[in-house]
């Protein structure tokens, strides 16, 4: 146990890899065994995260805890340095929670089960690594590692247009991270270390008029600031870098979409919070208006985009653009108001919104998958009046839709309200414009419910071989933890918000 308590983070981080390797050695054709092994293995990091959570000192959530530091690449002084603070802890919880659910959701996958499950576990490691890294270089390594399994998941298990979508996803993200890599290298060369804390301290201590590598520091900072921003903006995704998302989502397998929307998008937002704001407080404040503008465009056009869709999954995909816009709006407000109560509230809202969107988006994508698996269509015009056929599914869909819509009493409202509250004092005009998006959030959510559950029943699904079957127990089990968390965060958010708030108050 001693080893475990001193290496808790690395065990959480690498257990999925270990499990993936074990799965690799399982006999061929034993799909059931592979599925259950993957599921049980993915529950281990979740259980350990709960241990982590209970041992985490919430009062000191602003400082990194459970740190581990090993020499990794001595020549360039990059260390394998990991740790958690309140912000990353909540993201780790989200990741380790969604992975087992995504694996359980994938029990209906029939092809190449072994490879599929292994990729999922590798993916989990990549995502966790990003949230845990305290060293820029390993941050980047994990950042890129996460892409590969997702590429194959879309490319191998996706639907019709999967080649286009996976290529777009891959090239776009890699293209975006080129600037990130260069910027990280520059910082590494400049400071002779990749340790985040040291770089932040050293970087902010440099005065703007210092000349480094033949340029003013302020110029370098502005350039590298945008390099970071573009890389993360593509991942979030921020308007106008968002068009890979609807394609990737639409083509990805259900569980892939769950993780993509639930966790991968959070990597971008996390990058903003962990790297952009601490490294570039001045630039962030200066360009906060621009960030807010992009955020509002994402909120408004994400909502319009979703409302314009007739493909259920595309509709949900666009809703991610809309919801992640609020995260960026909160970040922009925090950047503008650095150190004030408004910043703390906005940032609380942004981080909580990341968590909340993780729950509701994963839930929504799963529910779309449930009905797609049965009907083999996602065209909203081909559904209609299905409520009497699938009452339990209908109830769950309405519940999850309402969480996504931001209905007070469920989770989305708390975070959106905090973002609006924090942003109002700093970016009133943008916030007001964002309300148009909030209005149309209602419109697209109701459009989904209207076309699937309500209206005259499409008789095709009522009888015969296409008769729609009710959501099964396994699928309900996937939804229960999500719904329980949505409700608990709507009614009593302080269990999570305390951890986030203490970190945010200390950091921003």
């Amino acid at each position, binding site marked *: 146990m001693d080893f475990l308590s001193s290496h808790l983070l690395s065990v959480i981080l690498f257990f999925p890899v270990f499990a993936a390797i074990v799965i690799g050695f399982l006999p061929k054709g034993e799909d059931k065994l592979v599925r259950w092994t993957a599921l049980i293995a993915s529950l281990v990091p979740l259980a350990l995260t709960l241990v982590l959570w209970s041992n985490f000192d919430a009062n000191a959530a602003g400082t990194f805890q459970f740190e581990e530091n090993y020499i990794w690449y001595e020549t360039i002084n990059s260390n394998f340095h990991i740790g958690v603070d309140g912000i990353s802890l909540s993201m780790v919880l989200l990741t380790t929670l969604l992975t087992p659910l995504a694996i359980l959701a994938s029990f209906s996958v029939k092809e190449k089960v072994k490879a599929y499950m292994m990729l999922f576990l590798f993916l989990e490691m990549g995502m966790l690594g990003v949230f845990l890294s305290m060293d820029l270089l390993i941050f980047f390594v994990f950042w890129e590692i996460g892409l590969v399994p997702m590429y194959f998941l879309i490319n191998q298990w996706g639907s019709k247009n999967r080649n286009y979508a996976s290529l777009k996803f891959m090239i776009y993200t890699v293209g975006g991270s080129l600037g990130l890599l260069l910027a990280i290298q520059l910082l590494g060369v400049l400071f002779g270390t990749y340790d985040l804390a040291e770089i932040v301290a050293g970087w902010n201590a440099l005065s703007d008029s210092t000349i480094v590598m033949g340029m003013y520091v302020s110029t370098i900072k502005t350039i590298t600031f945008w390099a970071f921003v573009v890389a993360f903006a593509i991942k979030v995704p921020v308007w106008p870098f968002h068009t890979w998302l609807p394609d990737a989502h639409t083509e990805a397998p259900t569980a892939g979409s769950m993780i993509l929307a639930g966790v991968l998008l959070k990597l971008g937002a996390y990058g903003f919070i962990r790297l952009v704001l601490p490294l570039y407080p001045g630039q962030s404040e200066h360009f906060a208006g621009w960030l807010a503008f992009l955020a509002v465009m994402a909120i408004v056009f994400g909502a319009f985009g979703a409302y314009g869709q007739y493909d259920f999954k595309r509709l949900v995909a666009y809703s991610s653009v809309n919801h992640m816009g609020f995260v960026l709006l909160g970040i922009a407000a925090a950047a503008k108001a650095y150190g004030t109560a408004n910043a703390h509230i906005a940032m609380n809202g942004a981080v909580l919104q990341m968590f909340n969107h993780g729950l509701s988006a994963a839930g929504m994508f799963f529910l779309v998958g449930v009905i797609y698996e049965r009907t083999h269509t996602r065209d909203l015009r081909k559904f209609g009046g299905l409520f009497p056929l699938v009452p339990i599914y209908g109830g769950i869909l309405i519940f999850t839709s309402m969480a996504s819509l931001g209905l007070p*009493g469920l989770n989305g409202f708390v975070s959106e309200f905090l973002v609006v509250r924090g942003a109002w004092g700093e970016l009133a005009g943008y916030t007001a414009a964002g309300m148009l998006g909030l209005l*149309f959030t209602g419109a697209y959510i109701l459009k989904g419910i209207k076309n699937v559950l309500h209206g005259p029943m499409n008789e095709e699904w009522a009888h015969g071989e296409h008769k729609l079957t009710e959501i099964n127990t396994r699928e309900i089990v996937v939804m229960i933890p999500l719904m329980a968390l949505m409700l608990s965060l709507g009614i009593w958010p302080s269990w999570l*918000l305390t951890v986030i708030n203490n970190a945010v108050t200390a950091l921003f």
Partner: protein
Amino acid sequence: MATENIIWLLPLPPLLAFVIIVLFTNKSNKLSHSIGVGAAALSWAGAMTVFFRAIGTEHFAEHPFTDSIPWLPLGDGWLEIGVRIDPLSAAVLFFVGITVFMIFLYSVGYHNFGQPKGDHDKKGFPPHGATVEDEHGHKHTVPSVEPMYARFFAFIGLFAAGMYTLVISDNLLTLFVGWEIMGLCSYLLIGFWFQKESARNAGIKAFMTTRIGDVFMLLGLAWLYTATEKLTGTGSLAYKVIFSEEFLHDLVALDMHFLGLSAAGAIGLLLFIGAVGKSAQWPLHVWLPDAMEGPTPVSAMIHAATMVSAGVYMTIRIFPLFSAGWDGHGLTTAMSIIAFIGAFTALFAATIAVAQNDVKGVLAYSTISQLGFMMAAIGIGAYVAAAFHLVTHAFFKALLFLGSGSVIHGMEHGVLHTGDHSVDPQDMRNMGGLYKKMPITFWTFLIGGAALSGFPLVTAGFWSKDEIFADAFAHGHYWVLGTLALAAFLTAFYTMRQITMTFLGEARTPEAEHAHETNWTMTTPLVVLSIFAVGFGWVGIPEDFLTLHMPFENWFHGFVGHTVHLPTHGIEFSWWPLLISIVVALGGMGIGYLTYRNFNAKDAVDPMRKLLGPVYHFIENKWYFDEAYDVLFVKPAIWISEVFTEKMDKGVIDGILHSFGTISFAIGSTIRNQFDTPVINELIGDGSAEVVQIFGRWLRKAQTGRIQQYMLSALGVLFIIFIALYYLVLA
């Protein structure tokens, strides 16, 4: 139990009823409605306990029941939420408790509990009736039980929980939570028969229209919350903070340089827009008439007990905000705007109600109109009058809606009897003479109608409406008084038109002849509510009415009036407003009766159509607001979503992305075709190979296989090397 604890628990029974019915008892109708009605009764009992403890407390306004707990950790502090019952919320709690309980009870009968399952009933459609065989072997069609009976009780349970949450809140945030939960419930219940296109669309319309108001309200909340930062850490939305004099003083001093609004007024207006949506005021009134697509108990719920009342309640609540800086003379900008919207809505909706033939349609527009009265009242600073009218209206409008539901139910009976399903049981032209068939419904409806018309002295509606008139008159708001008086006249007129067409005269269709009275679960609520529709007015009779010294004080004024500090003094009795109120009420009712008493054939032309001509057409079509909004807002929104955004994303943005791909590909293939292939491959790559080949071919000739030749060439090479060495090194 401590009063505060009871207050905390008030929303819980209906909320639990919702959860239990949805998760466990939805298969059993009996269990579900027992839980639902039981929960409503429990909350009612709690509400009454709180209410009577409140009125028994000395100086209650200064010492309201409050309690709060920390909810959100933000920055260095916590955002607190809590409960508060002060005189205003106690009065609202009183009517909410009673009307909600009555509506729950009524729903049992309305949804035909105890009747057989329908022959062809489907979930998502209203029940169509069932065929039963009596002991003589005759087949009858009787009403059938609602197919989603249990679900209905779950939804209205959540609805009631939302309203209780809103009323007991001590802050605008949890008020907003209750507010939005009701928004969801109204959506679910208006669209309860979701397979009907019209119901489905009406639900969406209600949700979206009120959401327009809600997003403005959210901004108002954010602003208010931000502005209180100076007073309390990260800010607060509790009434005790946002309505404190210290805070309002700061807020008034902040001029917005827009229409003379102060920050307090601007925030007040943002919040008021929320109420415009929720209480269906012009220009966001369009959802409420469509809301009658839902089952009738839902209409009563929305129109009286909960939703629209919530909007007015909130507006009365935030009175200190938009009236901040008001000295009792003239009006602040925000107050004028509210008074204008209220007065205009009151009149405008009343004109539409005149031309409605749907028995619920008349009531729907009358609700909009009456809410306009309340908004106008609060706008001119008649705080108590607005609250008073809110309460009395809730009673008589709940009564009228439930009464109209009873009428429809009776008519449906007639329709099932004759089997002619082309007869619309909601169309008043198909009715007539129902007073004989449905006496309890008739008398209670008459009481409700009289209260709505403001029938002098006995009805509650008279006293509350008179108080609004008196206040407007005393403070010189003659334009408000004039507009409202005209609206009141129309109200009396259309109400009497409705009563005449529905109940009086002779039956105009065989269906009306075969209508019959509804059962006790439906008539009991009617009787109970009619008692309040009369009696509740008596608690607000002015002490100096008719310049007499009444032997009792104006209890309502004394109780609710202390909730806020008003800059105006009590008003003295004046004959003018009283006279106006009597003349418009009696005149409107009289003319209404005279005009419609001879309306005795179902396809007769409406007398008003003859009189008004094209104007009638205009008001009959609701001033064409639906059509205008469709062109101005709905169609453009769909275009922006489906065409513009799609073009932007797939055309412009993806176009640029793809152009990167195309350009890279073009560069790649250019390099390949222009440089790689000719220069590297052909010239250098293939070229070097060729050179080697040629050389090899040439060299092959040397490969003769003869040792002597090899020796000779070796000697030759050695010779050349020596020569080279000699010249290069030695020389």
